[in-house]
């Protein structure tokens, strides 16, 4: 504060008082903000919304509540990867893309798309 700063500067000796209001400089935008869920300051219990990563005490309890395209199946993660065998297919055998979950498969083309490709896009403007 200006007045007390003046007083302070004028004080020739000892017990100086530091004003508590001080201009802290130009506004700066934080370059990094921690967005990990923290309890709301006015929450009476300090708990987080359940289902939030931080409220789980173990990975297993997180998996119980986790959602990814619907609830995650616990069975998918309860066997260690080593026990599932090699990732590479044995010699002479192949992965079939159409047996993978739907989201990994090829999307079929519509007739309009086929036509657009075959005409080099000209059909779209015809």
């Amino acid at each position, binding site marked *: *504060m200006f*007045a*007390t700063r003046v007083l302070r500067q004028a004080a020739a000796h000892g017990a100086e*008082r530091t*004003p*508590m*209001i001080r201009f802290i400089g130009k506004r700066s*935008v*934080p370059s990094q*903000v921690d*967005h990990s*869920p*923290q*309890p*709301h*300051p*006015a*929450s*009476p*219990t300090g*708990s*987080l*919304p*359940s*289902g*939030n990563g931080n409220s789980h005490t173990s990975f297993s309890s997180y998996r119980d509540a986790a959602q990814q*395209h*619907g609830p995650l*199946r616990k069975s*998918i993660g309860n*066997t260690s990867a080593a026990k*599932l*065998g090699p*990732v590479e*297919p*044995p010699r*002479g*055998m*192949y*992965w*079939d893309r*159409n*047996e*993978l*979950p*739907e*989201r990994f498969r090829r*999307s*079929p083309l*519509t007739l309009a*798309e086929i036509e657009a490709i075959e005409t080099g896009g000209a059909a779209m403007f015809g």
Partner: protein
Amino acid sequence: MLSSRLIPRTAVRSALRSQSSLPTVLSPVSRWRRGYASQAEEKDLVIIGGGVAGYVAAIKAGQEGLKVTCIEKRGMLGGTCLNVGCIPSKSLLNNSHLYHQILHDTKNRGIEVGDVKLNLQAMMKAKDTSVTGLTKGIEFLFKKNGVEYIKGTGAFASEHEVKVALNDGGETSVIGKNILIATGSESTPFPGLEFDEKRVVTSTGALSLEKVPEKMIVIGGGIIGLEMGSVWSRLGAKVTVVEFLDQIGGPGMDNEIAKQTLKLLKKQGMEFKLGTKVVSGDNSGETVKLEVDSAKGGKSETLDADVVLVAIGRRPYTAGLGLENVGLEVDERGRVVIDSEYRTKASHIRCIGDCTFGPMLAHKAEEEAVAAVEYIKKGYGHVNYGVIPSVMYTHPEVAWVGQSEQDLKKDNIPYKIGTFPFSANSRAKTNLDTEGMVKMIADPETDRLLGCHIIGPNAGEMIAEATLALEYGASTEDIARTCHAHPTLAEAFKEAAMATYSKAIHY
């Protein structure tokens, strides 16, 4: 498990497909569908509720360049605050105070008035005019900031979709990248007394009584009860306040200030039954009867009144919102559980205002609205929950911010106090309005302001200075060395600050 996915190239796949243990993924929208345009425009932000929290968030979002929709079912923006809360009550408080002053406080001011009559209908009309003007003003601000306004009742259909039952009939749905719940609160009912808003009323009914009741009982001596009790007491009702605790004012009000408030309100003609429990109520007779009992046990008595105002608090309002459709949780008091960035467990759904944690105050909701939109747009926001002022608009007004003396005592925090009475303030003297005081609480070593409690004229305006000082971490010396204009009521504020570390000049 992987071995089941290992399939010889030549195998009959269809036979194996039926045995596959791969999870099936169900989606409401077929992933095979390829569209060149989306079906409905996705908004950046959909806000459910057009009260103070919702409308402020909508305007802020519009200003930040977000595509925003606000859904409100009342048909008027502004929520409880503008329609049936802060604003209409302030209109009645101001006009009833003028009426009361003209009746009882003019002769010593050298004003002689003739026949003074109350025209309640006109007073209510003045209230409605203020409300309508302000709510229409928000509609204008919506247009100015490009906010889409839908009049209807919104409910979650899915995590990104809100179905709206339109007030004019029909249904629509809005899709939002982010959704903000701002559905507010409602009066907590009293078990055994059903609201009819005529004889057993909430604050909403108490703002629209058709005539001045002869006798009125207010259950609950908090801010709402005392404000509405004051209005009808000034207009001629015999008002009795029944409060369970031994003190009025509700949580946060400093004990010393609460005692002084009680004394002044009693002087104005209001009666108080503190430490008294309402056991039951009966609305079947000509008057409403209440059985009351000492809270600590003891003698019981029957009170009767033409109107009973139930003002025992408010509770979050999320009924019909379909929280269960998206798995959102509320706590044991019905508040939506959120984190420090207002996120529910679905991080794109946030919640602010009365329906979540913190005090149910319009200005707190406004702060949260701005912060929530900033979190969405910029990634950071700010609300200081330790520095939220409270104001009771009785006469004299009572206002406070920060910690009370009893808070500090309870936590064993050292403090020192400076007070200044308005009876020693020149402006209050000239106004012939000298009841009350400013009480400043500071850290004994650094003089840092810890709390400020004011009872007196204009306390609600004056508390802004204390709030600013507290937010900036000022010392009482900083306040006292800041020049305050003379003659103003604010000089009492400065002198109370001075009294914490030195002595007030005029007292």
